[in-house]
């Protein structure tokens, strides 16, 4: 008997809408299209894929490329490339904690650094990883369905160059997490969201929580367009 997905078709009925971001290089673009850092037109078919195969996920997926998310992820890439580490290249290994769908961060890493290594995505939410594989293709991704909060020991053994966590507000403080990798952590003071179990009050508090031995960069940006007291914080540095 076919397994029924929540609010959706059975696995047997799942339809491959196609159109992965990785496919973009195989088709010709116009000059204007080439100027887009991410081939956003590919998302048209990805949205259809989600609407058809994961209708209960449409809203959540749409949130994953809101202006807020674009701002945060682009900010991270720009700072990393221009101000922090000039050694990041195609051989750099990336692990993303709390990766969600990787909607923006995965194509941005490809775009900015052209990594040849598989990007490792860790999330507690198995379905978001399943969708991530459909979006980006399995060839250049390695997904790990783990609860980061309970896997510090395992993650500390990972050999990677960069450990990204742009969801610190959703997790237990990374204070005691140990790694030799370059850490790129983001959080926020937006406490109104119930999912933010670990929102911090300030960049200083976040820095203390990150417990880095060497901070290479830190800063903040507005969290919203509609108010000026909610911020997103970022700390980049080493914990060893």
């Amino acid at each position, binding site marked *: 008997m076919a397994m029924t997905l929540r609010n959706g078709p059975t696995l047997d009925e799942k339809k491959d809408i196609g159109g992965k971001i990785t496919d973009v290089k195989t088709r010709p673009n116009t000059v204007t299209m080439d100027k887009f850092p991410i081939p956003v037109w590919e998302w048209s078919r990805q949205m259809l894929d989600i609407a058809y195969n994961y209708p*209960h996920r449409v809203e959540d997926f749409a949130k994953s490329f809101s202006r807020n998310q674009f701002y945060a992820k682009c900010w991270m890439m720009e700072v990393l490339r221009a101000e922090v580490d000039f050694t990041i290249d195609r051989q750099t290994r990336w692990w993303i904690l709390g990766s969600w769908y990787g909607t923006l961060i995965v194509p941005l890493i490809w775009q900015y650094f052209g990594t040849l290594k598989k990007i490792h995505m860790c999330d*507690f*939410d198995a379905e978001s990883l399943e969708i991530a594989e459909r979006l980006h293709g399995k060839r250049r991704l390695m997904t790990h369905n783990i609860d980061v909060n309970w896997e510090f020991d395992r993650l500390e053994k990972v050999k990677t160059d960069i450990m990204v966590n742009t969801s610190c507000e959703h997790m*237990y403080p990374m204070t005691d997490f140990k790694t030799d990798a370059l850490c790129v952590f983001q959080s926020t003071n937006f406490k109104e969201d*119930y*999912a933010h*179990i670990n929102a911090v009050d300030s960049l200083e508090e976040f820095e203390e929580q990150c417990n880095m031995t060497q901070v290479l960069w830190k800063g903040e940006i507005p969290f919203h367009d509609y108010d000026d007291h909610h911020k997103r914080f970022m700390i980049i540095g080493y914990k060893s």
Partner: protein
Amino acid sequence: MINFVCLKWGKKYSAEFVNKLHGMLKRNIKKPFKLYCVTEDPKNINNDVEIIPLDMSLGLEVWWNKMVLFSKDFPVKHGMFLDLDLIIQKDITKMYSPTDKMQFLYTDWIDLKQLKAWTIGDNYKYCDINSSVLVWGEETKKDHIWKHFIENKEKIVFMYKGIDNYINHVHKYDIFESDWAYSYWNCNEEYRDDVPIILFDYNQNKQDTIDAEWVRRLWQ
């Protein structure tokens, strides 16, 4: 002999809740039984109820005190835990059928599909078990849960809003097979006479605030 256990901590519940729980058990349980109450304040609790002093040195608050049930040192080695905010209206003896894992209620009285959808992106809030009723036996493996809790107490209290969410996400458990209970506040505040246990969870108002004939008749 079936052992029943309840927990009274702080000022949330008076001794009246414990005494009335004993009364409901007396009317509905056909086998010999004993009711134990884990509490730091045994004042006004009937002498029929055996008191287990609550270890305040653990520094636990509210519902987290229920975790002591998982310790191998908990004095009642086999039994059934009952929250105080519930009404028993039928014989629940058959619920007592311990397995190698602690048994929880399955919260199928709420729309779990909808809950799953609501908690996308906020997974820790999803929970489909309820610890208002628990059953364990001599063979039930539960001490590892207690150890994990004690070792990670700060993290657990930080991340999870209660025991149910914590166990649901981190440990293995069993669920009761039949529909033994429903949640009054989650089921349109309707009285159902066919379900053995009525829960008054998810709300600060408990059964003592409901002015209805069936409450007066059953909760005594």
